[in-house]
């Protein structure tokens, strides 16, 4: 159990900068998800926390203790790797035991720990199998058992579920969170899957191009995105983005005009972001609605998504009742609710304003 602090971390390989001036506080006992597209630096950051990789600059503290130069084992971390890497030539029991190699436990205590971990993950019948003889889900459980058996300061998980099929992922997701909450151990979970991030994390750290875009609870990340990148990366179906401009405190984009009450906003290009549940489908020529041509209609069961192309080919999505009917090629209007819109400046950061119809 540990509080982990990253101070001004920078990691570069030759000329390529993988992580830039990262400050991150991971609270004791929390489940932190690091989310971002591939190449954003999230795995590099995880490796630096693990000690598999060393930062070029900056400090890493575990409970206030500087571990920046400490090798992985000295930090007492446990890690689950992509596609649940295990030693292929060792049985599950031997694999789990390898985690305890450097502990000062007696033989009986070790056996007890392994038995406990195996029971917790329902691995008892498989302890003497080789990883190649098990299914993907069983391997994932074995890798988790190997991680928890050491009672580490923190769990580090590097996309452990990405190689599994959807149904298995769903059940293992809640299983992992449940386990982490029961043990109360700090966990850092790296993923590029926003659904995984939203459902599992106590907090989410969104990264892009080596920078930390935003850190916060799933609710904060979803409802108060700090940037256009965060806003569009999270949410399914994704947020609609409409390019427009501000003049004299009013946002204009074609027929859409929204008054931004905040004064002193400089004129210039601005992007409007609105989630599909915060738009209404209207007639194509309704005031305040962007005319679109229906591109597709997706049925999700409880609701449906209309996808339309506007005049520039930009795709806009609207959540509608499951009974909604439209044919591809139909003309419709999509009108954003003024109060639920986000505005992002040219630099991609969100402009804090309260908005109302103009």
């Amino acid at each position: 159990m540990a509080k982990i602090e990253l101070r001004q971390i920078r990691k570069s390989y030759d000329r390529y900068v993988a992580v830039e001036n990262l400050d991150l506080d991971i609270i004791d006992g929390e489940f932190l998800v690091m989310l971002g597209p591939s190449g954003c630096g999230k795995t590099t950051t995880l490796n630096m926390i693990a000690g598999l990789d060393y930062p070029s600059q900056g400090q890493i503290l575990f409970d206030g203790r500087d571990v920046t130069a400490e090798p992985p084992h000295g930090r007492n971390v446990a890690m689950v790797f992509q596609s649940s890497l295990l030693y292929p030539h060792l049985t599950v029991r031997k694999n789990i035991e390898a985690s305890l190699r450097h502990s000062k436990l007696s033989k009986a205590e070790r056996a007890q720990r392994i038995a406990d971990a195996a029971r917790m993950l329902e691995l008892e019948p498989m302890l003497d199998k080789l990883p190649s003889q098990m299914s993907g889900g069983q391997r994932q459980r074995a890798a988790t058992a190997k991680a928890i058996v050491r009672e580490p300061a923190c769990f580090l998980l590097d996309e452990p579920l990405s190689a599994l099929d959807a149904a298995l992922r769903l059940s293992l997701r809640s299983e992992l969170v449940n386990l982490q909450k029961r043990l109360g151990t700090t966990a850092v979970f790296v993923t590029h899957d926003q659904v995984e991030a939203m459902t599992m994390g106590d907090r989410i750290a969104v990264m892009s191009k080596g920078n930390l875009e935003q850190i916060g609870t799933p609710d904060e990340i979803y409802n108060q995105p700090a940037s256009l990148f965060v806003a569009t990366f999270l949410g399914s179906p994704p947020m609609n983005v409409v390019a427009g401009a501000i003049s004299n405190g009013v946002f204009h984009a074609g027929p859409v005009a929204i008054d931004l009450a905040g004064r002193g906003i400089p004129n210039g290009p601005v992007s409007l972001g609105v989630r599909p549940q915060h738009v209404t489908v209207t007639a194509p020529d309704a005031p305040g609605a962007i005319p679109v041509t229906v591109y597709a209609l997706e049925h999700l069961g409880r609701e449906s998504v209309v996808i339309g192309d506007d005049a520039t080919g930009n795709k806009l999505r609207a959540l509608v009742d499951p009974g909604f009917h439209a044919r591809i090629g139909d003309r419709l209007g999509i009108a954003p609710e003024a109060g639920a819109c986000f505005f992002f400046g040219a630099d991609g950061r969100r402009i804090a304003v309260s908005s109302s119809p103009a």
Partner: protein
Amino acid sequence: MTKRRPNFVIAMTVLIIWSLLPILWFVRMAFMNHAEIANFPPHIFPSSFNLSSFVNIFGYDYKLADGSISAASGQAGQIELGLQNSIIVSAAVTLITIIIVVPLAYVFARLDFRFKNVLLNAVLLAVAIPPVSTLIPFYTLYVQLGLVGTLPGLIIIDLTTTVPFVTWMLIGYFRNLPPIERLARIDGFSRLHTLLFLILPLARSGVAVSAIIAFLFAWNEFTFALVLVNGTPATTLPAAISGFLGQDPNPAQLAACILITIIPPALVAFFLQRHLAEMNIADPVR
């Protein structure tokens, strides 16, 4: 075998015949007697299967069916000595090659360090140098060091070929092993422990194949042996057999000797062929 595959059967038959024909030609010769071999035109099959050649080359007389005696070969002493030395040299070269090459190939395949490419090129250059052009430099050096006509001398010179060649072959194989070093670092295993107790058992096919290659090379090495140990107490089987070419031409005994030399590598290959089929050096398809 649910489907009949005539094309496959034909192709496989052709392949087997192709592989065995030259060997069978020598089997035929080995069973012939002097007169039969000299006969023209040559017969396809020997008239009788007499084992005299195989007995003669180990220094024993053989009583033929017609009561005459096929005398022991004058080369028998050299052959037995050569067989003994060849076993020592091949075992030593195989063992030392493995001990040197496994860590070396591992380092080149899976670690990143400065001058890696320069050093790798040096290894490749060592593969490219023809033995004929290194013979005189090594011979001169060996004369000064007193290594001519000794087993260690031959072992060292065999290693100069096996080490770079096997390293080259193993690098691709090591690259394809799963990245368990990261797992091992988390578990707190030292680098050396990781290599010896985690990578090595995982790489046993690669090690087995390295052993086959090194053994075959040392067992069959001819040029160096001819120059360095031929006619000395350190003579090896290939050098001893060369005696049949010049001093004492006897095709049947020569053929018998060559056949004997095939047996040990064939046994090695038979027991390790499973590993040969595991030796993938390319990126696996995903």
